[in-house]
């Protein structure tokens, strides 16, 4: 249907982001649930994760989540409307427009947290 063009890229990015997100999700659930081990353990874990490398990792995961969310809505429009498949390429450009509009404020908010911003 759309081999080698925008639709193919949309599909691969959806898969790659999906796999990355479920990997992060299992790590994240484990990390947060380990608060059961008490304040000593958990505050030490948080101090370890205060490293900007982890912060940048969170920014990357958020970037993947935002793409997966918006492209997922595109897939649903393709599935349940009569016109979605015909305009799938235009919808994908729409995904990127929304990505920039929603993503830039998110990026700046998160980078502000990662690099101090009034610590």
């Amino acid at each position, binding site marked *: *249907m759309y081999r080698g063009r925008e639709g193919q890229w949309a599909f691969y990015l959806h*898969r790659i982001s*999906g*796999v990355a*997100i*479920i990997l992060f*999700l*299992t790590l994240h*659930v*484990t990390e*947060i*649930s380990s*608060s*059961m081990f*008490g*304040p*000593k353990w*958990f*505050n030490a874990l*948080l101090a370890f994760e*205060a490293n900007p490398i982890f*912060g940048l990792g969170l920014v990357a995961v*958020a970037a993947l*989540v935002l793409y997966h*969310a918006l492209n*997922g*809505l595109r*897939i*649903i429009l*393709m*599935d*349940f409307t009569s016109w979605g*498949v015909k305009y799938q390429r235009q919808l994908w450009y729409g995904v990127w427009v929304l990505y920039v509009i929603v993503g830039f404020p*998110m990026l700046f*908010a*998160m980078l502000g*947290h*990662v690099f101090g911003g*009034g*610590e």
Partner: protein
Amino acid sequence: MAMRARQFEEAKRLATSNLELAWWIFMRVSGVLLVFLVLGHLYTRAVVFNFHHELNYAHMVKVMNSPVWKFYNWVLLFLSILHGTNGLRYVIDDYIASGRVRAWVKVLVYTFVFLVTVFGTIALWGWRYQPMG
């Protein structure tokens, strides 16, 4: 087997079983819910709770003991784990050709995901957090 259907009518035709069609529908329904739940999660952590400055054990205890956040996080946990694991199943079905390897990979993935989910559920519902240990 995972479906490559691009429309609901096509999905109904291609589904090898009612269960497979149910998963196809679940991915769409949970997907819409997750858009709002996950973006709400990111927004509350990053903006409302200002996560790097206020996130510490004492703050976690407050969140983990709040019935509203318990429920929110539990719905988020279950929908995202089911959505993500079913997505992984599609990927495994598409890229691992050998039936034997595929079966083992699924056993390992499902076991790991199950343990993580149990751990998360205990943390949400089965644990009394002491305010400051």
